[in-house]
């Protein structure tokens, strides 16, 4: 198994409570291995364990990686506590990411829930960098409350290249976005179904509802891509911990085409 490389925290930004973005660079300096949108690294907080965390920065970033993570357990709490100058272990990049070659020339529906926007940010930045390469793009982003939505400041720049619809479960009266479920605005959105690709990342129950809405809107199963999450350990497809049906999420995913995984997607406890 490949040993972790030592990286140093360049900076740490608190996005929302309990959720931070770390920019990290190799401790020895030099370049970093390029990654594709949707791939992930295994981040190792010394003495607290290793966790898979998606890349959340633009692929054009040079010399460092960006990772957004939420402190929800021992390992991620340790990583979220890291400060500039602190060190951590990094293995990666791993996995198969978003099908960027399939998106060119087509309309792209980006559907994200909660922290699920983080693995989609590299894809969004790619679209924002070259909007003419796509027929169009729409982002549907759902969260619990307005103050728990990620990257709101950055979204101002995204709006030049894509239509952004924000939806929250709960809001105060001054909220100008949607209240409800993220599939609400999606159900009435206008897009050419026959030439559209959807990329979805968020809580699995949200993705189930999103798939159903996309099917009702005329998208075929081969045009829907989901980023799945299962417990990972080796990230190389050897240990079997993330086996899901015939697939290993770490190696064959985390991004899957829905038509390839539909038989397992609705199997309980899998």
């Amino acid at each position, binding site marked *: 198994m490949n040993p972790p490389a030592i990286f140093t925290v360049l900076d740490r930004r608190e996005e929302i409570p309990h959720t931070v973005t770390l920019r990290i660079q190799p401790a020895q300096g030099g370049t970093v291995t390029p990654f594709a949108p949707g791939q992930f690294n295994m981040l190792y907080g010394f003495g607290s*364990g290793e*966790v*898979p*965390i*998606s890349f959340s920065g633009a692929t054009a970033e040079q010399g460092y990686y960006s990772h*957004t*993570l*939420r402190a*929800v*357990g*021992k*390992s*991620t709490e340790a990583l979220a506590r890291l400060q500039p100058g602190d060190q951590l272990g990094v293995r990666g990049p791993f996995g198969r990411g978003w099908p960027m070659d399939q998106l060119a020339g087509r309309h792209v529906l980006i559907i994200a*829930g*909660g*922290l*699920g926007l*983080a*693995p989609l940010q590299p894809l969004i930045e790619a679209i924002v960098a070259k909007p003419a390469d796509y027929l169009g793009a729409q982002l549907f982003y*759902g*969260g*619990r409350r307005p103050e*728990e939505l990620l990257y709101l400041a950055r979204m101002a720049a995204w709006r030049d290249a894509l239509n952004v619809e924000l*939806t929250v*479960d*709960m*809001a*105060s*009266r001054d*909220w*100008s*976005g*949607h*209240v*409800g*479920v993220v*599939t*609400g*605005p999606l*159900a*009435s959105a206008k897009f050419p179904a026959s030439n559209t690709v959807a990329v979805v*990342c*968020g*809580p699995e*129950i*949200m993705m189930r*509802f999103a798939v159903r809405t996309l099917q009702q809107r005329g998208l075929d199963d081969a045009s829907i891509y989901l*980023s799945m*999450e299962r*417990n*990972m*350990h080796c990230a190389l497809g050897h240990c079997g*911990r993330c086996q899901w049906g015939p697939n290993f999420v770490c190696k064959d995913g985390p991004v899957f085409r829905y038509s390839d995984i539909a038989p397992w997607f609705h199997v309980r406890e899998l």
Partner: protein
Amino acid sequence: MKTVADYVREHALFDGMDPAQVEFIAGCGRLRRFHEGEYLTRENDAADHFYLVLEGRVVIETHRINQPPAPLLTLCANDIVGWSWLIPPYRYQFDSRALTAVRTVELNGQCIRGKCESDNCLGYALLKRLTSVMVDRIHGARMQLLDVYGAATPGADPLP
């Protein structure tokens, strides 16, 4: 120039419905605009109308003691506002307020109830469509109650 029937026919609620039935329903409607901040419905008022949203956004909300009203759901083009006209005692259960300038077809609930009573096929066809909207709203409300963004999201720790 488009008629009320044209707008009714193009609305998602009536997609694929028998044109004669749509025409019949459109006879109970008129075009109506609301300014930003104006109310389409007020809680406990007589539910005489419901609205096909053509353009703009509407928020469904309820009032609270000593607090601002709580937004519950935002609706936009191709959504409908109000079904209290269908169910006794025919009083609105929530406020609905225009978040932007809103264009609607306002349908008279009493007129439609009368037509549905006299033409049960029309009543059943309309009820099936409204039930579908109600079911979608119930599913959405359940999802909101589940608080799916609160836990177990990408980036979370693997389980032991």
